[in-house]
């Protein structure tokens, strides 16, 4: 390490002009000191932990608290449900964060935030002090909106599989056990929910599996929305390929569930299924929603888009699915990763006594499989708008695939490997 004062003096003597950009870049990174606690080791949390270490040149201490022992990816989990991939393909260790980046990873649950004292409480009994706190807890299901799913037994029968893990395995098992001629029904909540195209991808991949192995079966898509919420034209085409096996019903909001008979109760109709898969309505994860942090619509966290800091709770940054999104911004893993990078940069500046960047830019891509090989994408770029104080889509950028294609099937898997490495390795 050079002595900064000497270096500056030398640079000034040498004229200063040429040396300035590189110099201040380094000085910024190495000046930040402090302890950041990150809650949640998913797409947002793992990324922010790594980038805080990397961009501060290991100057900022980071503790990551995650309740699960390993990372299990929601992206690609629909391929596990469809039988094209295994759980091992979507399961990764936190060792890279520990060993390469020196992040202290604790397998624990944060039960309370004391933002005044800058402390969090752990389920195991400990307390952690922080200079800055990042919450990336993902979503909580609003089971109160789905009568009939109050008990654990009901929830073990009527699965969501909208957090990858045991439920992914269980849903795959239900589909394997289903008889030929059975009905798989998927209930989609009103937007906004985690991963707008995710349910339609799942419907395609289940239909693909059933078409090949149990062709007398049916896939019934019960969508609370009035139309397909993402890549509508492309999914409509994909659904046509599954004609006879897949039926799409818009405006089909779930009112109630009878778990024992696997029946979905709609406004005017009752649908009895052999495998009933309900994605419940969602809100910010409990630790963000129940810590006095300001929410919008009682569901999503209200943040300052320059730093992702809560608008009413200084020192607490919230990223990923838990936040109230900017216009047209989806709740995706790709986007959570991008939130994380803006936040890491902002926190390093703040810890060094500097203002966050005034021009944050984020971009999104969601790839969806419509069968084992063919993929469609939607992409967008979003830039901070100082007048609107939010992040707005860049006009003329982004778009969707021309048609489902195999090349993007390869790119989608490549995306997964690179984003997993970007957050964990």
């Amino acid at each position, binding site marked *: 390490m050079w002595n900064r*004062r000497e270096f*500056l003096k030398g*640079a*000034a003597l040498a*004229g*200063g*002009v040429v040396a*300035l*950009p590189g110099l*201040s*870049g380094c000085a*910024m990174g190495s*000046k930040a000191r402090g302890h950041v606690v990150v809650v949640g080791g998913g797409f947002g949390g793992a990324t922010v932990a*790594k*980038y805080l270490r*990397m*961009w501060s040149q290991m100057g900022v201490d980071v503790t990551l608290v995650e309740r699960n022992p390993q990372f299990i990816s929601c992206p690609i989990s629909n391929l596990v449900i469809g039988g094209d991939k295994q759980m091992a393909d979507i399961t990764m260790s936190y060792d890279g964060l520990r060993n390469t980046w020196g992040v202290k990873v604790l397998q624990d649950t944060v039960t309370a935030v004391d933002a005044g004292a800058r402390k969090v409480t752990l389920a195991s009994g400990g307390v952690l002090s922080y200079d800055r706190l990042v919450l990336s807890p993902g979503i909580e299901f609003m089971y109160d909106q789905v009568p009939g799913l109050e008990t654990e037994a009901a929830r073990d029968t009527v699965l969501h599989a909208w957090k990858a893990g045991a439920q992914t395995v269980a849903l795959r098992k239900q589909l394997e056990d289903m008889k030929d001629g059975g009905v798989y029904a998927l209930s989609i909540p009103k937007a906004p929910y985690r991963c707008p195209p995710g349910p339609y991808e799942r419907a395609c991949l289940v239909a693909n599996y059933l078409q090949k192995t149990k062709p007398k079966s049916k896939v019934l898509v019960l969508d609370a929305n009035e139309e397909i919420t993402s890549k509508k034209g492309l999914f409509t085409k994909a659904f046509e390929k599954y004609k006879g096996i897949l039926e799409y019903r818009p405006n089909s909001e779930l009112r109630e569930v009878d778990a024992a008979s696997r029946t979905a109760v709609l406004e005017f109709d009752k649908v009895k299924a052999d495998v009933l898969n309900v994605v419940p309505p969602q809100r910010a994860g409990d630790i963000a929603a129940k810590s006095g942090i300001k929410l919008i619509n009682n569901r999503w966290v209200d943040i300052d888009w320059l730093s992702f800091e809560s608008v009413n709770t200084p020192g607490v940054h919230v990223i990923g699915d838990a936040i109230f999104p900017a216009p047209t911004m989806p709740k995706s893993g*790709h986007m959570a*990763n*991008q939130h994380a*990078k*803006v936040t890491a*940069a902002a926190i390093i*500046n703040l810890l060094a*006594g500097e203002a966050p*960047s*005034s*021009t*944050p*830019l*984020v*971009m999104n*891509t969601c790839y969806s499989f419509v069968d084992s090989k063919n993929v469609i*994408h939607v*992409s*967008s*770029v979003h*830039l901070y708008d100082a007048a609107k104080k939010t992040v707005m889509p*860049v006009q*003329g*950028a*982004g*778009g969707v*695939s021309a048609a489902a*294609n195999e*090349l*993007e099937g*390869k*790119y989608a*898997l*490549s*995306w997964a*490997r*690179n*984003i997993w*490495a*970007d957050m964990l*390795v």
Partner: protein
Amino acid sequence: MKLLRWTLAVGLIGAMGAVHAEEKADPNLARNLAATCANCHGTDGKAVAGSGAEALAGTDKAKLMQKLMDFRSGAKPATIMHQISKGYTEAQLELVAAYFAARK
């Protein structure tokens, strides 16, 4: 540190005139913009080996710029880069290309 920066700014004014010293450029802008590409091209443009993604790290800046501008104009066929590259100004792409070119 404040004092140091002040000293530096004074030095700058002396060297290149007062006007430029007023605009405080974000020294991390290139790094931050380049990080938006990492989801697909790897951290700092170092793609996962065998993933099929093009590594950008260490590629000549002019070559990267040429490809990005060709994506933007449509001269270079693409599944997605034509849509992504239009989300960045030419100046932003210059910063990103220079950043990746400097990675080893």
